[in-house]
């Protein structure tokens, strides 16, 4: 049993890549980045038996669930992974963004670009309203409140007239053509690229924040909130920011989503979605943005690729969460490189 565990712990993609990256020159890094970006934009055209999904439209899968969940995982990572705030109701922000575009776009003719901003904004407002009182509480209580909030949003959407009740909203408009690219339900590519661009902007923003003071403040809060406070970190402010930023990202993604699918139902915004996004973060590597993206891709792609997994998707995700927490709580791609460990008393290096 233990040899199998040591073998498992030796699988460390993170370290091998991490080492390469650290030794790479600036030029190499730029080329790598450009290649990766190019690859992701080109993906819709790379539908072949190797990469493609057998029973569903690959391009459609690229948008949903892949791009959508990656975007949400990036957002939730700021909240759960980086700051340690367990949010079980993340889908609420997604729903707010989706319904914002659904309502304002379909009934009031507001275009998607504005609605992405408005969707994010409303989600942020919701984040503040919920966050201000809730973030004062300890982890488990907070988790339950966020779960409650997620459910409340869904049930309200189910029962209000303006959200279309159980029938939802249909005929949601897509944005007008840009550079001769047509956005519509039938062709997921433009929306995919839109979501991809959105996500990249978000990741860019996150990288800047993560390496600087906010990132340190968030991690300190995650590690030991009381001590962070003693070290001059304004924990209330930063927790709220994490929560609100995460919400904004969810809201923006939601607006883009509703534009692509053109009709939404409250059923699309269940607790399951929150848990699926959480699984991506937990599985991928809490706090490690690349790990989270990789985790989201893996968890959303594999069930599409391997059909038999698809039915039992949530079953496996549940099991995965239990297993991950017990064996590799840091996720598949942990935040930091595995390091030398020193004996506490003698200062001698301990071999692993």
């Amino acid at each position, binding site marked *: 049993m233990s040899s199998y565990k040591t073998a498992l712990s030796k699988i460390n993609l993170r370290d091998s890549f991490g080492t390469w990256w650290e030794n790479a020159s600036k030029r190499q890094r730029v080329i790598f980045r450009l290649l990766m970006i190019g690859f992701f934009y080109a993906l819709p055209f790379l539908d072949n038996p190797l990469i493609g999904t057998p029973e569903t439209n690959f391009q459609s899968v690229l948008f949903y669930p892949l791009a959508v969940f990656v975007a949400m995982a990036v957002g939730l990572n700021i909240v759960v992974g980086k700051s340690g705030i367990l949010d079980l109701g993340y889908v609420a922000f997604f729903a707010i963004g989706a319904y914002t575009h659904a309502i304002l776009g379909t009934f009031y003719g507001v275009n998607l670009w504005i609605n992405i901003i408005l969707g994010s904004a409303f989600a942020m407002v919701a984040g503040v309203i919920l966050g201000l009182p809730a973030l004062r509480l300890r982890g488990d209580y907070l988790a339950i409140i966020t779960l409650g909030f997620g459910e409340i949003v869904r049930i309200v959407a189910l029962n209000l007239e303006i959200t279309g009740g159980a029938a939802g909203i249909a005929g949601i408009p897509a944005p007008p053509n840009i550079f001769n690219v047509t956005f519509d339900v039938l062709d997921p590519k433009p929306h995919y690229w839109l979501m991809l661009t959105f996500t990249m902007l978000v990741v860019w923003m996150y990288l800047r924040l993560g390496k600087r003071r906010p990132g*340190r403040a968030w991690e300190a809060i995650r590690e030991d909130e009381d001590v962070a406070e003693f070290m001059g970190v304004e924990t209330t402010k930063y927790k709220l920011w994490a929560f609100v930023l995460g919400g904004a990202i969810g809201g923006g993604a939601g607006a883009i989503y509703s534009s692509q699918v053109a009709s939404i139902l409250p059923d699309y915004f269940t607790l399951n979605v929150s848990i699926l996004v959480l699984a991506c973060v937990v599985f991928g590597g809490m706090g490690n943005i690349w790990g989270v993206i990789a985790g989201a891709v893996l968890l959303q792609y594999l069930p599409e690729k391997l059909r038999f997994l698809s039915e039992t998707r949530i079953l496996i995700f549940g099991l995965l969460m239990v297993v991950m927490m017990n064996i590799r709580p840091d996720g598949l791609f942990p935040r930091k490189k595995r390091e030398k460990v020193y004996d506490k008393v003698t200062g001698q290096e301990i071999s692993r």
Partner: protein
Amino acid sequence: MTKLLEVKNLTMEFGGVVALKEVNLHVSAGEIAALIGPNGAGKTTVFNVVTGYYQPTKGDVSLNSQSMLGLKSHKIARLGLARTFQNIRLFGDMTALENVMTGADARNKVGLIGSIFGTSRSRQDEKLSHSRAAELLNFMGISHRSGQLARNLPYGDQRRLEIARALALEPKVLLLDEPAAGFNPQEKVELGDLIKKIRDAGFAVLLIEHDMSLVMKISDRVSVLDFGQKIAEGTPSEIQSNQKVIDAYLGVVENAS
């Protein structure tokens, strides 16, 4: 000497338990003050009240004549009171450098928006935090640990790191809670020198310690708590011969000197 930290008539009650009763303490500029007393006397409670974790039932805490009552802990930290903890509480998953930078950040102004847009101010702040942190790691003799995760450091270095992090706040008074716990005699001597070095660098120090020889060797002034009340205050030699103190410790003072 100017009194930096003043604790006046501090009373702290938790439900029915009186943890501190009318305690008066002060720390003046340039001194190493020690707070000693048997276990459970309330010493860490003093730290907790002074740093804003608890609001006192009665009494006042002031720093440079400014009252700290009702202020949140992060504000108090930025106004000049930084502390370490009895059981080391580092940010385990962050590197040593990052730990100290977190403290150094508190001295900067730029927050979230600036950081996103990478304004020149934020880049300057970042460089500043970085260099301050590096300096402090050097000062504490643990530069070589800079890139390592705090939880992987050996014990002695962890203690030093915790002190470095507190110093990054550039406090007026540094509160050390049993910094020598778990050290062997050699390390305790080094620690004593380190604390003196800190004092000489311009920080006043308030020290909670159980190791009497360390306390007696480096402190300028010692206050003794027992059952939440101050029972004596004076120079180390005065305290050592104080009958009340001896009684409170039941002979521990004699054994250690």
